[in-house]
């Protein structure tokens, strides 16, 4: 972003990579897939790089409003310094926090989840979809809580999967009733309380019940949880867990 700024230009969109997308090995693949799609569609975009910091979502959900607001205020300062107008992110937690919780602290932007952005690109004819790779294959979509219930977006990822000509199959609990992967509310960073099962196992079982070939996700944390679930069920060789961006990016290269 600093380079764009120095050149006196502004990109079409700022890609907010997020902590998982920057540091977590599995999530970095999502980041790269999404970047590939942006380049394929000739979208001019920037990233904040070292100037990006945690959105504050896990701090807020853990109950630390102070730390959240410190993070948010710092990020808003950076974003406003670059006069950012439009943000896209592949993490529904960053998406929700920046979209819904930054405005009260002085940061108002147009914020899109990457599946929404990609869907626009396809509909505008800027991004072409290869309809062969996943044609007729069964794909189920796991609704991230912070995209679905929190922000009422159930359609964009499904619309992309349908455009791949894949057979979209739904799990027992989906859309408004979608079952959490177990990572939200800062659970990702702690052990679960005592119970009789892990949430991600329950969700993975629901996904496997559909006899799907691919479990599509739209969140790096869900992705990790479902990966672990599939591994636990020893189904890695049969069922792939992929972000919607990875599905789209893979189509041509495969």
């Amino acid at each position, binding site marked *: 972003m600093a380079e764009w700024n120095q050149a006196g230009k502004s990109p079409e969109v700022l890609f907010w990579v997020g*902590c998982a997308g*920057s*540091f*977590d090995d599995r999530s*970095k693949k999502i*980041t790269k897939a999404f*970047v590939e799609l942006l380049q394929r569609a000739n979208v001019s975009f920037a*990233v904040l*790089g*070292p100037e*990006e*910091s*945690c959105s*504050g979502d*896990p*701090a*807020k*959900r*853990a*109950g*630390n*409003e*102070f*730390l959240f*607001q*410190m993070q948010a*205020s*710092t990020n808003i*300062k950076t974003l406003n310094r670059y006069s950012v107008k439009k943000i896209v992110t592949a993490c529904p937690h960053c998406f*929700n926090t920046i*979209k*819904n*919780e930054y405005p009260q*602290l002085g940061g108002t932007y147009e914020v899109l989840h990457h599946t929404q952005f990609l869907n626009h690109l396809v509909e505008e004819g800027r991004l072409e979809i290869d309809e062969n790779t996943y044609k007729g294959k069964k794909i189920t979509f796991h609704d991230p*809580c*912070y995209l679905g*219930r*929190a*922000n009422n977006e159930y359609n964009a990822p499904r619309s992309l999967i349908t455009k791949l000509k894949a057979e979209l199959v739904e799990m027992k*609990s989906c859309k*408004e*009733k*979608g*079952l*959490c992967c177990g*990572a*939200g*509310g*800062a659970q*990702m*960073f*702690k052990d*679960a*309380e*005592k*119970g*009789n*099962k892990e*949430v991600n196992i*329950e969700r993975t079982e629901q996904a496997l019940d559909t006899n799907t070939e691919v479990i599509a996700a739209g969140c790096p944390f869900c992705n990790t949880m479902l990966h672990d679930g599939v591994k636990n069920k020893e189904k890695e060789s049969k069922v792939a867990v992929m972000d919607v961006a990875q599905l789209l990016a893979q189509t041509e290269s495969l």
Partner: protein
Amino acid sequence: MAVGLFTRNILRIIRNIRLGHAIDRSDRKSDRWKHMARLALGQSKMTVRPIAGLLHIIVYVGFVVINIELLEIILDGFLGTHRVLAPYLGSAYDVLISVFEVFALLVIVAVTLFWLRRNALRISRFWKPEMKGWPKKDADYILYIELVLMFLFLTMNASDFWLQQYSQDASYVQAGRFPVSSWITPLFDGMQVSSVILVERIAWWMHIIGIFAFLNYLYYSKHLHILLAFPNTFYANLNPLGRFSHSETVANEVKLMLDPSADPYATPSPTSEPSTFGAADVTDLHRVQLLNAYSCTECGRCTDECPANQTGKKLSPRKIMMDTRDRLESVGKLLNKGLPIDDNTLLDNYVSREELWACTTCNACVEACPISIDPLSIIMDMRQYLVMEQSSAPTELNAMMTNIENNGAPWPFNQQDRLKWSKE
């Protein structure tokens, strides 16, 4: 007297709710009316579960419709008449009475099915630990009361219909059609006119007394929802569910910390927010949260959808609401006696930390509630209290937060390495 008692109880509820701090939900009036019309009046979320939804709509419509007849029953009582409205309505009266009777029968069927779902099918959400004792009895009592009231209504009609035919007394106006109770009428054949009059009077009185007693039972029961569902949906949170509550007090502090030119000794601007962060007790919650607690019908749809509860954790969003109401009631009882609030708190004495930390903040409970109750906001307020007032987050979360403070990510990675992925 019944109305007086009821008024006293309603005033107590209002007083208790006002123990919470004020929250401004006066915006978006027309959206609020629409939300209330859709959810409370129109029962739109009840039918997400079609069987329970349909049965509930039958009982709800039956309740509203049959209460229209109550008007005539009371008028008859005061005027000493029988079916005082019949001459004014003509054939429409026949239709009305028929509709009332059909609904009475439908309600009997629905309530029986409700009872069977609870006690014979033993649907799991009705048998969770928080449903032991009074909540279980309360649920059954409501069904029994409704059954008895419907049977009394039909008996009253049946005996009246018999008297219309066999009594010499002209005051038994020949009016109304009785598609259901006419099946009961033959039971009176062979009885003395005077005994049938007695039956009719007893049914009439019991019906009236029953309804007033039921009105006063509401205050002690989950059945309060029949009234409070309306204000509760009106004052619901209409923001996206992902937007959690904002704290202006914290915002001011953060502003001071980040702005080098700010005067730290300036008098803090007066805010309506309480001085504690988060909530330890009901008095730290806001009024809509307390209204939520009184409105909860303990149907358990929230708990049924909760990922933590589904996987055997202690957390149950319904229990959070029931605990909030129980605690508020116990505070209210002290106030009734003019005593100060005791040292118990909602946190720890009612809701355990284990429950609070099991929440994934997924909003499934909020989405599931047919009348927009928000258990998650109470969980979050109590978490905030634990972290900001007591610094007692689970160790791993403290590590996560330290990472965010030090290097701007929940994991111990260097912020300068945020672009590394692009070079790999």
